[in-house]
């Protein structure tokens, strides 16, 4: 076993034991390699699991890595046991989350202006769910709080980093048209994106 394979093997063991996302930096420290090298090795591992079509894959969240199951096997896992599901978000919460994720850092009143309605309670709910957090204060009058998304947001929505947020063009096709695409197709598309 060469040293690269050896380190990757250790990373696999470490991720498995750790459970939670493991920082590339922290893994690098254990081997006295640079965090960039560690990151590369994690990415290689990630690719290996995906290409082999394994039932467990490696998820990246902001340069941290974690073993997770693939979404496609959810039905079998459900038959085996009842894993705790994350509660779905309301339409209002998703709107606010959409605004914050794309416009961060952003203040409450800027969010209100886009929605045309007060968002206080929705924002509080999202903070409680740890999907968003206060990341500072604006320099503007009153020094209002500014919000941004968290790693929990990245995790639950399958983004590796906030840079992964897709661009949306073509505002004019109506909402109904999108809904014709079956969920399977969309899921396939998402899977492709992730690969």
């Amino acid at each position, binding site marked *: 076993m060469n040293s690269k394979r050896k380190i990757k093997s250790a990373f696999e063991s470490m991720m498995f034991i*750790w459970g939670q996302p493991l920082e590339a930096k922290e893994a690098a420290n254990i081997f006295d390699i640079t965090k960039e090298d560690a990151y590369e090795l994690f990415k290689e591992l990630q690719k290996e699991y995906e290409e082999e079509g394994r039932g467990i894959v490696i998820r990246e969240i902001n340069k941290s890595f974690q073993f997770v199951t693939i979404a496609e096997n959810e039905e079998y896992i459900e038959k085996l046991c009842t894993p705790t599901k994350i509660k779905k978000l309301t339409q209002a919460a*998703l709107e606010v989350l959409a605004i914050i994720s794309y416009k961060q850092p952003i203040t409450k009143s800027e969010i209100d202006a886009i929605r045309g309605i007060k968002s206080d309670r929705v924002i509080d709910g999202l903070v409680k769910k740890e999907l968003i957090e206060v990341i500072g204060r604006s320099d503007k009058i009153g020094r209002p709080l500014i919000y941004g998304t968290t790693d929990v947001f990245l995790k639950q929505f399958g983004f590796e980093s906030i840079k992964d947020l897709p661009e*949306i063009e073509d505002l004019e096709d109506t909402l109904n048209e999108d809904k014709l695409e079956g969920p399977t197709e969309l899921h396939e598309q998402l899977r492709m994106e992730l690969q």
Partner: protein
Amino acid sequence: MYKVKLETFEGPFDLLVYLIENAKMSIYDIKVAMITKQYVSYLEDLDELDIEVATEFIVLAAILIDLKSKMLIPRLSESGEALIEEDPRFELVHRLEEYKLTKKRAEMLTERMDYFANVYEKPQEDISEFLENPDEFLNLDIEQFAKAFMLFIERKQKISEVRKSYQNIEKRRNSIEERIIHIAEMLKSKSNSEDIYNFNEFVPNAEDNYEIALTFVSLLELIKEQEIEANQEKIYGDILVKKIKDNTEEEIEQ
């Protein structure tokens, strides 16, 4: 028109977008009069809503009505020519664009949320055996070491400076006696016609407060011993010193 309940809308823009899409209009060419009429008819349900939400719906209604009147009035200049100016709908369109984009993004997030809710992580393995004996690391680096040391040296230098001046003061305190002898010698050697001296004459360095104080204390001592007498005509005026002639020399020599 089939009416959807007002409560189902996330806000005034949500309702407006719904009406525009339902009428198969483009947001870039809104038929303001028609949409305003539909929008306002929705507000009839308002008494069922709480006042805060109602206000927000009404604000947009006001904007729409204002826009409607602007669209009706032909835009003519004073000379009667048609005026080319910005479409009054511009700002509303801009806000609608932003809102529609938000809706699209929210929709994208919804799909991703549904998909990724099927991805599971596993809990951390039992690592308690590792937690009992934490590794202790000494946090040391050369910079910290040098900084702490320099601080020590600096402090040491400060101490020796303070000490030096402390020693100086002690030395000076011992010299009150010397100053008395010095004054006495001056009184003896100088032969001023009337035997009157200005206080300042006894101060070797008038810049130094300590010297002034030392001289003053020495003179007080001499007055107490009745060697001299001193007078000051007015406050802050010159202090004039006069020698008392009897047996001066003998007393001081002792």
